[in-house]
């Protein structure tokens, strides 16, 4: 039996070095837990953000819930919270039919923050990111250049979290760095 420490650290695709630019800072976000929750008719429930409107999110610390579609939520939590979160889902949904799939390793997040963050995102994201159209608490799947992303804006700060599939992370990160440079 090999030492468990071999896998104690998660090997994330992007290096840790942040890319600094005063007006749009791009940095990989730390790893965490991500669950894709699919369930129908759960909007009446209040826990886990199930009551959120489509394309809205709630966030507290590392925990967040983003409703990406009528029956789809992306749930996030700190790295050690997988079982806790699964437990909460079970408690909230009982034996209601649902699909819970661990996508913690599928998703990679990059953050972009600063006064030009939205402009930089708009180099590749076709959405209206103004405060009126994409206020604090917005979350949606969309595009960044040629990659699909989930774009999250947890707070009113000009800070966005861009989640993509792991193999697109290099592209997404590179795109944001270039966009921040030329924004």
């Amino acid at each position, binding site marked *: *039996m*090999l*030492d*468990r*420490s*071999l*896998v*104690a*650290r*998660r*090997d*994330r*695709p992007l290096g840790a070095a942040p890319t600094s630019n005063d007006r749009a800072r791009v940095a990989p976000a730390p*790893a965490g837990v991500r669950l*894709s929750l*699919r369930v129908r008719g759960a909007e009446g429930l209040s826990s886990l953000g199930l009551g959120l409107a489509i394309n809205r999110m709630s966030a507290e610390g590392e925990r967040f819930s983003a409703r990406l579609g009528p*029956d789809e939520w992306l749930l996030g939590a700190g790295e050690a919270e997988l079982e806790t979160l699964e437990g909460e889902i079970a408690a909230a949904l009982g034996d209601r*039919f*649902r*699909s819970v*799939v*661990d*996508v*913690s*390793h*599928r998703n990679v997040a990059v953050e972009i923050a600063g006064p030009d963050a939205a*402009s930089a995102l*708009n*180099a*590749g*994201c*076709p*959405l*209206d990111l*103004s405060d009126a*159209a994409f206020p604090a608490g917005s979350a949606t799947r969309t595009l960044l*250049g*040629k*990659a699909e992303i989930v774009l999250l804006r947890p707070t009113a700060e000009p800070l966005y979290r861009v989640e993509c*599939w*792991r*193999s*697109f992370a*290099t*592209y997404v990160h*590179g*795109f944001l760095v*270039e*966009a921040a*440079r*030329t*924004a």
Partner: protein
Amino acid sequence: MAQPHRLPQGGRVDRATPIRFSFDGRTIEGFAGDTVASALLANGVHLVGRSFKYHRPRGILTHGSDEPSALLQVDRGPGKIDPNNRATVVEARNGLTTSSQNRWPSLAFDVGAVNDLLSSVFVAGFYYKTFMWPRSFWDKVYEPVIRAAAGLGVAPQVADPDAYANRHAHCDVLIVGAGPAGLAAALAAAKSGKRVILADEQPEFGGSLLHDTTATIDGQSAEAWRIAAIEELDGYETVTLLPRTTAFGYYNHNHVALTERVTDHRETPAKGAPRERLWQVRAGEVVLATGSHERPLVFADNDRPGVMLAESVRVFINRYGVAPGRRIVFVTSGASAYAAAADAKAAGLEVVMVDLRPERDCGPEAADLRLKGVEVLTGQTVIETKGRKRVAGLVVAPCANGTVGDRRVIACDCVGMSGGWTPAVHLFSQSRGKLAYDEGRDAFLPGVSAQAERSVGAAAGLYDLATCLTSGYAAGAAAAGVAGGRAFAASQTPTGFTPVRDLPTDANPAKVRAFVDFQNDVTAKDLKLAMREGFESIEHVKRYTTTGMATDQGKTSNMNALGIVSKALGRPLPAIGTTTFRPPYTPVTFGALVGPARDALFDPIRTTPIHEWAAEHGAAFENVALWRRAWHFARPGEDMHAAVDRECRAVREGVGIFDASTLGKIEVVGPDAAEFMNRMYVNPWTKLGVGRCRYGLMLKEDGYILDDGVVARMAEDRFHVTTTTGGAPRVMNHMEDYLQTEWPDLDVFLTSTTEQWAVIAVQGPRARDVIAPLVSGIDLSNEAFPHMSVREGAICGAPCRLFRVSFTGDLGFEINVPADYGRAVWEAVFAAGEPYGITPYGTEAMHVLRAEKGYIIVGQETDGTVTPDDVGLAGMIAKAKKDFVGKRSLARPDVVAAGRKQLVGLATETAALVLDEGAQIVADPGEPIPMTMLGHVTSSYFSANCGRSIALALVADGRALMGRTLHVTTPAGFAAATVCDPVFFDSEGGRIHA
């Protein structure tokens, strides 16, 4: 003397900041704020280029983006050289190197000008009538000569070092054009607090106000009003001001594309700043304040350098402080040129005014100008210009009712001509709005809008300053959804003109060359020839003569061409049609359209968690869809074939390790999951036990194979589906489509887990020995964990789904671990395997190993026209199932008919010969062409394990041809090969169960 034609005062140029650039090797001095054109004129340079066909000397016709003639090659530094820059648009600055185009050996002495002497032969469409004989001369002589003569400037030769940016933007009101109407619209819209974008192609906002120096608005000078307006707009946080930004495309649903020139005008651009930025604006409402273009007059030799548009003469004087000539003749059929003449006179230049209109049709402007001491001739026509490479005189004659009187030569060094105005309705037309011909204004005006759009000011045919302001303001307010208009008091604008076509002349009409399209050398005579030959639709005329198809896209020529055709055919102008305007309004660099999508950002390169390890261990990679996969691991001194042979042998003899992470994976979850799988795949799934796997085959509804892959049942209501690497998105989409739209009643959800799992295939007789020490919670024995089963447990402490599957035909496992653990587990397995000589292998060895077993690869053995039976997989089809996607199509007559191509093996007569994949197969190599082809080779390799080459092929009725010798194409002719079973290795299949 430097800048001998710079006026002593006036203009918006910064006389405190001199600049220099070069033109054809000569140093040109100018001031900041000059365009290349204005600086050239300040230095008395009028001859700046040669025309496309006849190589006629050409000068500067206009002052803006409608310029057809003054096109230059511009060198902005290493790698930054490009052709066809309009001198009237390029902002002059230090460090530019400009040169004229389409001339050899020099601009002044151009050999190509011989074409001008042959112009009586080189008429419109002449090339359709000749160059056909002898036939062989076309390829060898005529065409090369024609092509060598074509083109203007020289294409860039090296990769462009500049960067280009892209920006998606949204606003409530987009205003295109910041002339008086646009500024007024912006002021009104901005007040609403809504988001406004105001864009103008010029470096400064103001449009005509920049040179209409005598105008007043609301009691102040136009300049003071302009400055105040811009200041006010700048004060709004909700307003974005975009100078140097051309709206070039108006697409569906108010998607408007603009290109912003960010750094070309700067000597030392900010670090990282892009050369240009493409703005893709989605606007709630659009206000088009795009202005209008002045029309040239059509008379003989109207293309002589020094002949310009009247308003452009005014712009050069007022905006740039440049005298385009010392003795200027204005020729006009309307009022606006009088303002130009008055300003020229005021600047101290000699001026003569020639009005084509009879005295009675001239407004008060004629008398006003006479009062200023200018000679005004009315009721004239223009016969021709005098001079060679610069106009030296204008020949005019009185003309009434078509009768031309005595000629008079007016000596001059510049002509300012005006044939009236054409609203710039390009964007309106692109928006698919309907144009309506307005006889009074002799123009097509915006009619019915197709999108949320309004045209204002000169773009709507409104030329009077106060009207421009009022219409602009009203449109801005309406676009912003707020009530309110306001009136503007402004100085009067001389407006109105009499439409003229080609001017009456006393010369032999067959000899007169009066240019309509300056760049493409299309004359009025050419248009008439086209009509004589039956080209009557304006689109036909355009295509036959090439009028309007030059880099200016006919901005100065379209209305003249239409008018001449209309007059000649005696049909009303709208009956001739107007050309549909297409993007772009002015030419747009490819770079701006590409934006950041270059090099690493052209297309994402998808890599697996094990990619870096493979790179560190000498892997060569191949592209598969967006993925980069390890192809083989050649060691130093090995070529690819040696490496693949070694990798293949290692798997059969010991153990190999392979990165299969790119396989698509879908988690199918729900109480109806098995039923859903039954409908999507040809196979049955209901009875597949939990913990068991099955090879699944999926068809499109047309019955052809879409994809395949191993599917594991993780729980009663949960399947772990795998797909091909390239097929993953396609399969997911296919399944979602049926699930959501055909069977929404099924309780099933799909989640892509392709990237959640790293997949490490450990294959070979020693596979179990290698992984056994690392795995916990799973009994790996053959009995407890047989071939085609799956278990959940842990490896190296990481959770894993361990598959006992094989794509090699040997004992094998596929370890699925969460991706972040992929590399660590891979390294652990690799370390554990070292005692067994574990060998990393790539996709090429994987292909060989599976071909030895006759396993198909979708996309290689199949191509979108192949059924399960064609590849010998009809046995997969669940006979009991009434329906699944594609089933019905398998029963179509030509799908069940004999003669379909079937998968077989091919053994070459020469064992070492590896056939080409894609090689064709015939029965009789002696058959004359066209030959009967029986099929083609789908896969072909040298198999070290078989000690010979092996091939798979699709052959018509192939299964009936076992043992037959067929003939296969090779680069050297046909090679004989025997049809055989597609399984070349371990045909009993025992190894897989070891």
